[in-house]
């Protein structure tokens, strides 16, 4: 009995639920980092959707990037992206992740995230509220 995986679209099927998320923080002020973590705390509680923050990029379905990337981080971001199992969804969070924010004119700025790796979704804000982050990820997963 053949399993009709091709017709269902195996990859898309896997992405529908239970996203495992890996977080990479660039040179950030940590506001976004804390709001991301806030999503795990009892008030917002992303875990009930099966969304977990994982410790290794090799287990992740989604790569969250925030912070303005400085020259020292750039190589690491590229390495992380290369190590990530494809397909991977990349989300740029916060004003710094999307465009570099107010640090874009700094002397060590190495370009917003989408100049370094391809980005699938942007969640702007400084910092974006947990509701915005959740809405963004849910929208991305439902795509």
């Amino acid at each position: 009995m053949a399993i009709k995986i091709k017709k269902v679209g195996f990859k898309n099927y896997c992405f529908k639920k239970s996203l495992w998320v890996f977080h990479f923080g660039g040179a950030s002020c940590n506001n976004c980092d804390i709001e991301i973590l806030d999503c795990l705390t009892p008030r917002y509680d992303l875990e009930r959707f099966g969304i977990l923050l994982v410790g290794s990029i090799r287990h992740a379905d989604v790569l969250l990037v925030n912070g303005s990337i400085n020259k020292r981080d750039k190589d690491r971001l590229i390495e992380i992206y290369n190590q990530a199992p494809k397909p991977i969804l990349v989300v740029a969070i916060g004003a710094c992740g999307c465009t570099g924010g107010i640090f874009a004119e700094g002397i060590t700025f190495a370009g917003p995230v989408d100049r370094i790796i391809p980005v699938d979704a942007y969640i702007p804000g400084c910092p974006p509220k947990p509701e915005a982050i959740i809405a963004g990820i849910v929208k991305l997963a439902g795509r």
Partner: protein
Amino acid sequence: MGTKTLIPIGPYHPLQEEPELFKLFCDGEIVKDIKWETGYNHRGIEKLSESKTYDQVFFLVERICGICSTSHPFAFANAVEEIAGIDITDRTRYIRSIIGELERIHSHLLWVGLAGHFLGYNTVFMWAWKYREPILDLFEKITGNRNSYAMFKVGGVRRDIENNKISTIRKTLSDVKKKTDLLTGAVMDDPVIHARTKGVGVLTRQDISDFGAVGPTARASGVSIDIRRDDPYAAYPLVSWKVITAEEGDVFAKVKVRLLEMYESISIIEQCLGGLEKTPEGDIAVKVNEIPEGSGTGRAEAPRGEVFHFVVSDGSNSPVRHKIRAPSYVNIATFKKSCIGQTISDATISLAAVDPCYCCTERMAVALDINSGRKLMNAKELIELSLKRTIELKKKIT
């Protein structure tokens, strides 16, 4: 200067196996030396400041650190107002202090949660962060944002706290006080926490003086430095509170100091609210025409210690030089003393005890063998080791 968020959480944490800030060189179980690398978070803020007008710099310095986001605008405002010789209104003083103290409470709660996590008490982490939420809601009601409030400007504040909001603030504070009682009781009486934190990561008075450490890190070793009392600004000369110190200098003393400071902050806010009611609504700014030539020093007591801003002006619209020193800059260096000689399993809690501001530090540590330089364990494993030790102690004690 931190790159990645190093808020490691339970079985899920955003740590990677990349160059860490702290390399702990270990001989067997004992940490013998510490090396650190930084620069991952360098954004050239001091240089950026020179290309912005004074008004714009407030938005810039708020984003130096998200957790102590008010203390930088506070110190900067103090510095610029000193150059221009501006006298701010009483209502401004009260509003500034209220925002500063609310931030202290939410920052200490955040830290208590993290410390609980490093010790293996994930429930403490979840509770503490849950009890932070009402304070963030309060910030949103008063200032419009949960973090980065954009409240400060030269000569005053941007938004008023209308008198009709005062009862909401009072109600939230009384809730927070009850929850703080709960948390304090749970933490201070737990024998396993005593066993894990007493005598660990000790800093003596001499260490504090040698490194120039500030804030709760210094106060927990008996060195009573508090900029709110020593170099008063905003509403602090108008209210009264106790400066909390402890003598032992270990991690437990640091926990105690932070928990008890939350009560003092609540008391200061209540006094400031009383002061607000006595001042005319809307009297929140003085007109400032220009910033003359000169230099000014502004200091503020952030949740982590003394924030220092030094501004040099040449009469134009932008600062010529803006030197910023966050408290973590001096506090983190004390790791050299507090971690050496400890076991690896105590390393994470010792490091966390000075409350490094994550944007001033990096992800935690990695342990290396002192003879071969071989990596023994990464940060995730260090935290797991810390958890294991708690479980062992629990078995012994209960």
